[in-house]
Every structure is written in C-alpha cells, then in structure tokens.
C-alpha cells in the first residue's frame, strides 16, 4: 500500500491543475458562444460599442488565460483575432460579412483546440494556418492607426481593464451613463498614473468634471454589480443530479411515511409527518428550480447556425426571439436541442426563399424566423414560425401516394391539416433536390419521435406561399411527475397524468351492455363517440385478478391524436412519482417508459401510453388512420367545455362557432361594401377583407339587408375574413356534445345549445369551399 502514497499526492496536484484547466475550458466555451451570438448581433447593429466590447473581451480572456496556461496556438490565433477587433474598435475596420466569417472561423478553430485540450490535454497538431492567414488578410486591408490615443481609446478601456471580478470600472460607468466626458476621465487617470493618490471619483469631482451625486450613483452601481457576481456560484451538474436523486428518494420516503399516518393516531407523529410533507414539497420545488435553465441557452446557438446556413444557400434570414427567458428542466433542454436545430435547418433550407424570389413575391428580401416560448398550463410552448414558402400540401400528398403511404382515394378525403401532418411520416420529403443540409426524408419524423419521447407534442400549420408554424408543447420537467396508479393482474402500473383524459366506471349490469364488440375489437360508447378499448391484462399477457369483476374501469387516454380506453382491474390513486429509467436489458419492451418506487417500497412500472397504443394498434404507425378518422376536428376534444358564439343566419338558422376563433365582432354600414374579383370585400384596418354571407353559403333565403351588417371577423396569419351573419345571439360557455353528420360540408356537426338544435360551423372548411383556402391554416 505504501508505495502508492506519493503517486496519490501527485495525482492530487494534477487534479488541482485539472480544475484550473477545466474552469478555463468551461469559461472559454461560454465566452465563444457569447462571441458567436454577439458577433451576429453586431452584424445587424454595426455601431454597437457594447457588443464590440463583449466580443473583444471574450477573445482577450482566452488569449490571457491561454497564455498563462501555455497554450501557444490559442494565443497566436486569439492574438490575431484581437488585432482585427481592436481595429474595429478604432473605427478603422467596419464589420463586413467576410470579416464576420473570418472571425467566426477563428472562433471555430479556437473551439476545436479547446476540444483537443479537453480530450487529450494537448492543443493537438491540427493546422491552424488557414485561419491565421485569413485573419492577417483582413488585417492587411486596414493599417493600424498612428495615434496611440485613439488606438487605446479611453484610458480605462472597458474591455481591456475590467476589475478582476468582472465589475465595470467607475470611469466606465460614468461615461456610459453620460455623467462625464471620456476626456475628463482620461485626464484624471493620467493624474493618477503621475502619482496623484486621490481616488478617481474624487479627482473628477475636484476637477468639476462630474457632480458628486453622479459619482455616488456610479459607485452604487458598481457595488451592485459586485453583489451580483458574488451571489452566484458555479455548481457541477453531476452534483445537482445527485441532489435531485436524493430528493427523489426523500419524496419516496415521505410517501411511505404518509401512508403510515393512516394507521396511526399519535397526534404529535401526525403533525411531524405533516411538517415533513410540507418541507419535502418545498425542497423538491427548490431543487427542481436549480435544474431549470432558460431556453435562451439553446436558442443562443441558433443565430450562428442560421447565419452559416443562409450564407451557404444565398438567403437572408433574420432571427427573432421572444421569451428566451422561459425556463425548462435541464434534461428537457438537452432533449429539445437537436429537434430544434433540425426544425431551424429545415426552415432556412426549405422554408425561406432566396431574396430574388421573395422580392418577386412581394415580401421583404430578408426572411423572418421567429422563435417564441411561453409557459401555459404547466407546459412549455415553443413556436417556430417562418414567413417562407410554406408546405406545398398537394405535392406532399402526391408524394405520400407515390410512396404508397396512403391510397389515392384516402388522399382525396384528407383534410389540409391531415395532409400537413404527413411531414412527420418517415421517409417523406417534398424537396426534389436533396441538399447537403436537409431534405433526405429523415428528420421531421425523428423530430416528432424525440419530442414525444419526452412527453411532448408537435403540430404543424402552414399556408402555401406564406410560411410555416410549428408548435411544440413539452412538460416542464421529467424527473418527478404526477401519475395515476392502476392495478391489473395483481401488479400496479403508473400512468403519467399528462396522457390522462378521464376515468369511466361501469357498474354491474351496465358494464355488460355498454361495451360492444366489432369483429373482435371492443369499443365503448362515450357520449355518442366510439372509444376503442384496450385491455391491459391482454396486452401485457398477464392473468387477471381472481374473482369476476363486478365493474369495468376504463381509463381514457390520449395517445398522439387519438383517444382510447384502457381497461384495468382497479384504479388506485394519483401520486407524485419519481421516474427512474429502465436498464438497457429492458429497452426492447415498448410499453414501459420507466419504473418508480411506490409508497410501500415496491417497484411499479410506468406505462408508455404511446407505446402501448402502438402495440395495441390503436395508433397505426403512420398515424394516417387516426388522422383520417378524426377529420377536421383535429386534436381538439369536441366535447370539451368551450365558449361558443351563437348567431342567427337567414331567418331561423342557428349556428355557433368556438369563440376562440373569433377575432372581433364588427358592424359595417352596407354602403362600405365594395366588390373585387367577383366577391364582396370591405376595407378593414388597412387591409382588404373578403366577406362571406353565411346565409347564402348555407342556402338560407336571403333577407333584406338592414343598414348595418353584423360581421364576425376571423383572422389567421395576419389576414382576416368577415363572416356576415344576421344577428349575434349570445355567448355561451358550456360542454357541447357534438353529433357528427355525414357530408356536413362546412359544418362540424350539430349540437344542442340552450335547448335549441344548433349547427356548428367549421370555418376552415367554409373558407376552402369559398376558395379562400389560403386562409385555412388556423383551425
């Protein structure tokens, strides 16, 4: 044992060094990410001193620390980069696309060297002369300026001399807040350098360069900055994961204790258990928060990707972001990184047109890519939209038919929305020319699978020629989820609450009648709709519990676009469960998403609802069946409680549309109606809005116009359509049971609302019928 002692000490010393290098690597990589981001921002806002300083600082730090650690290559590359940047600061060079590309190439080669250092500890022998050459070419174009004064800028150059902890200097704060002139600060610093012992602020005040209050404010700002930087610490993710696991176990132990309280009557024990319960819940929330990261962390890498891509295919794309601060669990952030990148690539490569085409189509030459994220109902919504070409649905349909994914007859029956969802089918791409970026027909199906794997959903809307919108909904966290515990065949199973729609229990007599059989497939009539049933015992090949069941328990679940009923022996309770992955030996079993430990310490399996549905063939692999069967009512559950706008058309037609589709209710004088291309239109909010007379569209006898037209404005994608009705009746908020009718045309079906039979208008279908189908995207 003894001989190993010195070796240990040696490795400890190495560990200490490793720590420094590790920190350097982390900081440098972060710096380079910021560099990319800020440089691309600077391309748009070429005069921003702030961005330029930030870029400069990133390179300068790498050069400085890299030099201390003896990484010569890093130093030589970043030194040249710094020279280029300092000429930009001097105003000798102005950022042009070639310079930006050269600087980005520099960042890439720095990254490459950092990777080498991370893996081997050495800089590696990759050839960095091309990058050096490019940078020196840039430098050659702009000779250095003669005067030192301008070269060094203000005597306290913000980038070169931040305080050691990164807080800005006093002079810097004063200049940026326009409290005093740069020249005065410079003069004061020169005095200091010449031996004046007074602090900078005092000199400035004495010289009457700045008001004392200004210095006080600046000092306060500086202190605040100090506080901010000392308020955060870097923590190893591994440690956070460990803490998270421990909290997970604490939650389990808490659940066990709580189960115990049921049989105890000792009041002090009960109150202690209660306190334990509360503290655990709060601790769990707190720890979850430490794992939350703003989605901006992933987004920040996207502008760079977009820039590279758009330069590569001669396009101009502007990226806009909204809600970058929206927070998500780290594991989810990681899981969506690749799908997001893929969607962005797709949008730039296929969606956005070249500037010439865009101008010819009357769009601005710069394509717009919009990223939005926001929280809603315990989920995070991410929307990615572009104003490009949109998806050519006819082409998509033809391709799917050609590939034998759907039949021609089936294709003819498909709604626009169903066709759009074909983009998620494997092996389908509408692009004739496969580029090296995307369009190989793999991709969108992988995007969908990856998002569904983390319990999310993805939906696409597109208007041909106008653009595409992808909506992603994902849960906030994966580690601890609410779940319904059911039992079948003596085993317990957990079902994630997100998939749960409702519970149905059929007692005794009723149970026999309500479940019917269609050629071996069991169905249940749920409020008039047929719900396919899946028996958990049968699917899992486990024997049912002893004793004839008196009742049937149906758990209605949502799998993708489809609902199905899962028949289980018993429904136990809902519980917060800690999701644990299954070992790789069990990966071949499709219907389990993981396992968890129940209050009594036993293991229960977590059902993978989508996997189970696929196994039971409720959701066919292509999903086309479910899409076709569901028709235009989409994923919206038509039975759900919703607000409806009731109106009258003709003399007695009662109709309703979901209030969510109504953008405004307006009254227009008849005289304002004009005609264009054989259609009635009206000028509305600086747009020409087409009008549709619903009475005529549905063959009701026209009645004489009153002076004022009642118009329901329906908007989608920034364009509006006015639906002329005869009278607005009411707005009701109720659960509506939709009766579907054959060949309903522009009707979704009928329902009884306020004791009257009411037709439910299907606006997208109506607009298609009226050849306003470019407006169809929002349904």
């Amino acid at each position, binding site marked *: 044992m003894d001989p190993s002692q010195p070796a240990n000490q040696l490795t400890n010393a190495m560990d200490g060094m490793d720590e420094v290098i590790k920190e350097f690597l982390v900081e440098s990589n972060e710096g380079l990410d910021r560099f990319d981001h800020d440089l691309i921002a600077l391309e748009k806002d070429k005069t921003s001193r702030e961005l330029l300083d930030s870029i400069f600082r990133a390179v300068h730090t790498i050069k400085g620390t890299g030099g201390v650690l003896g990484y010569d290559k890093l130093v030589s590359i970043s030194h040249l980069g710094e020279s280029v940047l300092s000429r930009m600061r001097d105003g000798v060079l102005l950022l042009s696309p070639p310079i930006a590309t050269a600087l980005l190439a520099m960042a890439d080669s720095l990254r490459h060297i950092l990777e080498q250092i991370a893996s081997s500890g050495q800089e590696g022998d990759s050839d960095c002369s091309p990058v050096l050459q490019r940078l020196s070419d840039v430098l050659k174009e702009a000779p250095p300026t003669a005067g030192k004064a301008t070269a060094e800028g203000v005597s306290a150059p913000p980038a070169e001399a931040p305080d050691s902890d990164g807080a800005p200097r006093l002079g810097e704060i004063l200049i940026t807040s326009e409290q005093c002139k740069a020249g005065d600060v410079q003069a004061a610093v020169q005095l200091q350098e010449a031996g004046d012992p007074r602090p900078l602020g005092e000199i400035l005040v004495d010289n009457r360069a700045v008001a004392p209050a200004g210095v006080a404010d600046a000092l306060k700002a500086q202190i605040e900055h100090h506080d901010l930087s000392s308020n955060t610490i870097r923590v190893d993710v591994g440690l956070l994961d460990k803490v998270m696991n421990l909290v997970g176990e604490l939650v389990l132990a808490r659940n066990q204790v709580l189960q115990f309280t049921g049989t105890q009557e000792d009041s002090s024990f009960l109150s202690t258990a209660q306190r334990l319960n509360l503290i655990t819940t709060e601790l769990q929330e707190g720890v979850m928060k430490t794992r939350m990261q703003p989605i901006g962390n992933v987004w920040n890498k996207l502008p760079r990707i977009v820039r590279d891509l758009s330069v590569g295919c001669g396009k101009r794309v502007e990226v806009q972001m909204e809600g970058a601060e929206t927070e998500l669990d780290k594991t989810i952030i990681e899981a969506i990184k690749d799908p997001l990148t893929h969607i962005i690539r797709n949008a730039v490569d296929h969606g956005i047109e070249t500037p010439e085409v865009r101008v010819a189509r009357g769009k601005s030459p710069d394509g717009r890519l919009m990223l939005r994220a926001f929280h809603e109902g315990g989920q995070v919504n991410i929307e990615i939209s572009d104003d490009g070409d949109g998806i050519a649905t006819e082409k998509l349909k033809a391709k799917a038919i050609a590939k034998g994914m759907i039949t021609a007859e089936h294709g003819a029956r498909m709604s626009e929305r169903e066709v759009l969802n074909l983009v998620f089918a494997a092996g389908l791409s509408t692009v004739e020319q496969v580029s090296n970026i995307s369009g190989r027909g793999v991709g969108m199906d992988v995007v969908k699978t990856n998002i569904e794997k983390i319990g999310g959903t993805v939906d696409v809307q597109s208007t041909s020629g106008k653009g595409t919108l992808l909506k992603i909904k994902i849960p906030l966290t994966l580690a601890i989820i609410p779940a319904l515990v059911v039992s079948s065949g003596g*085993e317990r199973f957990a079902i994630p609450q997100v998939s749960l729609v409702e519970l149905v229990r059929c007692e005794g007599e009723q149970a026999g009648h309500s479940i019917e059989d269609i050629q071996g497939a069991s169905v249940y009539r749920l409020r008039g709709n047929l719900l396919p049933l899946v028996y958990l015992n049968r699917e*899992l090949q486990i024997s049912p519990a002893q004793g004839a069941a008196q009742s049937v328990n149906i758990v209605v679940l949502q799998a993708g676009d489809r609902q199905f009923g899962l028949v289980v022996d018993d429904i136990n309770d809902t519980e917060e469960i800690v999701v644990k992955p299954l*070992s*790789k*030996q*069990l990966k071949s*079993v499709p219907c389990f998403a993981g*396992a968890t430990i129940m209050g009594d*310490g036993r*293991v229960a399996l977590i059902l993978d609802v989508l996997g189970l549905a696929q196994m039971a063939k409720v959701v066919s692999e292509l999903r086309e069946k479910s899409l076709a069967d569901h028709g235009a009512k989409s994923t919206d559950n038509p039975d759900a409680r919703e607000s409806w706008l009731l109106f009258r058309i003709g003399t007695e037609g009662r109709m309703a549309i979901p209030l969510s589709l109504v953008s405004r209710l307006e009254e227009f004088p008849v005289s304002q109606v004009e005609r264009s291309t054989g259609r009635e239109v009206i000028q509305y909010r600086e747009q020409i809005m087409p009008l549709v007379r619903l009475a005529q569209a549905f063959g009701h006898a026209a009645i004489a116009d009153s002076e004022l037209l009642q118009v329901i404005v329906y908007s989608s994608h920034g364009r509006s359509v006015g639906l002329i009705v005869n009278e607005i009746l009411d707005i009701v908020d109720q659960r509506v049971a939709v009766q579907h009718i054959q060949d309903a045309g522009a009707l979704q079906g009928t329902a009884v609302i306020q004791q009257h039979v009411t037709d439910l208008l299907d606006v997208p279908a109506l607009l298609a019928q009226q050849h306003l189908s470019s407006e169809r995207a929002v349904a």
Partner: protein
Amino acid sequence: MNMERQLCTFFLEGLFFGVEVEKVQEVIRYQEMTRVPLSPAVIAGLINLRGQIVTAIDLRHQLGLSARKSEELPMNVVIRRDDGPISLLVDEIGDVVEVDEQSFEHPPDTLDGQRREFIRGVYKLKQQLLLLLDTEKAMSVVGTRPA
C-alpha cells in the same frame, strides 16, 4: 509469479460458481420483485435496492438450468456496472475464496454449448471445481422471448 485473486462464490443447482470480488457491489437476501410483462424470459423482475431500481436476471434460466421451485427464494448477487447495477439471482451464497491463477484452466471442450459461453474457465480447488462466470455474458439479454 504467484497471482492470487478473490472470488465471491455462489451455488446454482449444485454447481459452484465464482465472480471477481471487485465486480460485486453487494450480496443481499431475497427481495420482493416486480415482474416486467413482455420482457425477455431471463429477466426475473425489478427490485428496489435502497431507492434504486435494479433489474434482476434469473441466472438459472440464463444458464439453461432447471427452474427454481417456487418455495425456494433466490439470493441477489448485485454486480457493479457503469450504467447502474444488475442483480443476478442465485440459489445460495458461498464464501469469498482466494484462488491461485496456476490452478486455472479454460473450460473443457466437453462442457455443453449453451453453458460454455457463460463460463470463462475453471479453478481446480482441492474439494471441487469452481466455475468462473463471465458476468458480461450473464447480464446480456438477447431476443425478446415473451415470458
């Protein structure tokens, strides 16, 4: 050179097996198990090892031995692995035995095929033969034979 290694030993249907001590995380008595429907038959189920969920592999099934009688409760030999521990179900636990590398021999050719691939070799102890289990093989699961 006289190489010695320590083996954690156990019994399966009268056969004497050994696994390198370093690979064994712990040995525990019978744990309640949750069956995994539709899983390959060699997977006996999942156990709760102090909050960690561990897959248990029925070694008798894996080695093609006869099934254990239902009243006989197996013991768990928990094997350490990078991606989480795996438990091997055995009949009975033996001592930790020190073996001499010189007594090692490759498995005899006469050993029947299926069993042979799970055994790396044989230590000739005084009283009996000790079979060295190939843990990686023992923990591998091929196919998805429904239980």
